[in-house]
């Protein structure tokens, strides 16, 4: 099936099998920051923003994303750059494998105007990190969210 999706502002038209997952289409288009860490929609490493909301792209068929606006961790704007800077200063990334999912989720939380540490923690709890123990990630997001 032919579908069209806009990724980080760039329009892509692709021909996909109906069973193909969005995560695989994005990776084949070169958006390697979208990572696969599980097969049960648990780890969240593949989290992207689809029409403004975070989705686990391993749990979305590519055909469901027809016409959608997608943002990945490669995206750059003021908020994303602030998050990158805060992640770096807070040492919020170690192995880096979950970092894309953390960044896209954090971007959503900041844009939505997250109000408290509890909301940050709850918001990030859909992305697993095995390295950091989470505190530095939570602190980085809080800082950018002005908390």
């Amino acid at each position, binding site marked *: 099936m032919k579908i069209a999706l806009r990724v980080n502002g760039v329009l892509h038209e692709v021909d996909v099998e109906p069973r193909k997952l969005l995560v695989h289409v994005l990776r084949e288009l070169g958006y390697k920051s979208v990572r696969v860490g599980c097969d049960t929609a648990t780890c969240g490493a593949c989290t992207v923003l689809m029409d403004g909301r975070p989705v686990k792209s391993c749990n979305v068929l590519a055909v469901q994303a027809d016409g959608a606006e997608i943002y990945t961790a*490669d995206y750059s704007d003021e908020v994303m750059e602030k998050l990158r800077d805060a992640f770096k200063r807070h040492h919020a990334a170690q192995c880096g494998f979950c970092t894309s999912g953390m*960044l896209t989720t954090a971007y959503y939380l900041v844009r939505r105007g997250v109000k408290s540490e509890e909301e940050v923690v709850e918001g990030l709890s859909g992305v697993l990190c095995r390295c950091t123990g989470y505190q530095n990630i939570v602190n980085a997001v809080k800082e950018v969210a002005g908390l």
Partner: protein
Amino acid sequence: MKYVGRPIPRVEDELILRGKATYVDDVEIPGMLYAGFVRSPYAHARVLKVDFSDVLKTPGVVAAFGPGDGEPFSFAPGGKVRYQGEAVAMVVARDRYVLYDALEKVAVDYEPLPAVLDINDALRPDAPLVDESLGNNVVHDKVYEGGDPDRALKEADVVVEGRFVIQRIIPSAMEPRGVVAAYDGDVLTIWSSTQVPFDVRKEVARALGLPLSRVRAIQPFVGGAFGSKLLVYPEEVWVATAAYRLKAPVKWVATRSEDFKATTHGRALTLEYKVGASRDGRILAVTGTVYADAGAYYWGEGLADTAAQMLPGPYDIRHGRVRAVAVLTNKTPLSAYRGAGRPEATLFIERIMDHVADVLGMDRVEIRRRNLIRQLPYRNVFGITYDTGDYPTAFERGLERLGYRDLKRWADEEAKRGRIIGVGFSVYVEITTFGYETAVLRAERDGSFTLYTALTPHGQGLATALAQVVADELEIPMESIKVYWGDTAYVGDGIGTMGSRSITAGGSAAVLAARRLKQELAKAAEALLGCRPEYREGVFQCGGRSVSIAEMVKAVYRGKAEAQLTVEAIYHAEPTFPFGVHLAVVELDPETGFVKPLLYESYDDVGVVVNPLLAAGQVMGGALQGIAQALYEEAIYDETGNLVTSNLAFYYVPTAAEAPRYEVYFAEEPHPSKHPTGTKGVGEAATIASTPAVIMAVEDAMRRVKPGVRIDKTPITPEDVWRLLR
């Protein structure tokens, strides 16, 4: 401009935070094929027949390999599979979706055999044999002994006996394992999500009969490992062999469910103990047996042995006998998981201290105070020599800094309001650093330096830490140093990042390389300047004249002076011993048995701290892994050997919602190791210390509900807590 000791953000982050870090699944080569494995659904079975006739007719399938293909493929060795998830065949196809359809078409005839899953069953004389050639299931049995434990037990005022069971852990690095191999007719290149590219290269070269010079192993960015990627796995050899035979690039990346079975598990040690103590709380003798549930192949050599040899911990115990036994079972092979024997030793001895304190009616701080080693260096009863430290002072300062007594008082206050808080602590000494490590340092024409390390960082931030130590040695800005790692084309051999050894072994190699390179350049500078120069901040000077490193390097290339511009240092490192006190605070809901970690604090003497920002990162992440061992995680098999916790939906890796608040402290006056960096290592400290601290905290909370209750296993799940309180 000293860099060591400063909390410098990582130089690696730029790639990671822009999504540009290349992990093995991001390696793309034109014409690449995809490999996958048919894995046994049985824990123990004879493989009667593997039939590829259907799969080879499938469009897009390129090749299939099975038990009939011989070495270096090694499917179903001895005609059987020994654990659920063991590979019996490999299929190579043009596309991942085609591949996974094709894997279903491989017909395998199995004859299921009785499986043995529990070490007690495995030790019975009539137990099914995991490896028939052994005659029983005991694959390793060794006794460590010192002093006169029998006499000491006889003379003891009290003898305390017990058993403590540590569960199987699935390491769960966020990136599953994967391999890409490509053969261009000249060089075989392997990219692997590994901690040991040098071992991968050696093993692939050996398996295929190729010279080392024509095999190159590359460690791309690796998404976590925690010891689960420090073996050469069969898949690395098989994918390389397929690429070599097919003369095409081949990629295999495990799915999570596949990784949970095909990547080694950790912990799974049980201690049966008998200790003797005097009435005033001195531990006189520690004896017992450590059993390792080794799984289907004995890949995790030394785990029970490390736990046995480090069992005395930071305590002055003069008599001991501990047997280390490894038992084969029909489960995924056991190997290293962050700490690899030391977390188990620490959890065991800390539980023993609490048990003896309970029997004597003694305070848990006091019993440790009375047994701590007073004088370093110290040779423990099993012959391991702890190098430097001042344990009594660090213990008292640590408890003070962490606010142990205040927190206990606060818990008492909260109890009056009906809130059940538990406070626990742990003391540890651990052994880090072994073997050699290699650094190659090159002076460039513009005065910058390129460092190639044999270390294999996968999240630790070693490119930053190495740049710090080398910049200090060369007295230059750290931006002038670029660190490369993970490629056997850069460095001939090395070991890699594991065992908290990196900055000590690899950092010291880098420091030595920098020292030698300075000496080389000084020789050339002397020839150029006509006098014996002094070196300061990138400049050689004497007799009122000076020459910069950039000018020196250019002079060497022009033939005006002679010097080695590339220096290799191979550093042989002796073990060193970090020490610390950690503390955990938890809240208990006695109605549900649910335990919430609230606070985690650490106070460590790890020698020189090169980068406190990165060191604290190691502590926090390590702590959560140890907390998860105490409270959440366990690999569970059913009675047929089916892994029930077969993916992240059923195996509980903690999320941000479970994480406590952390406070990380390092000793104000650390005791450096004798290595050039003065470091001792920090990668595993908190994984080692956190489980016993949390277990003590949970027990403390539970005793507010039911006095005298004792925890004798990990994890202690809400159900366990609830049952113990009934």
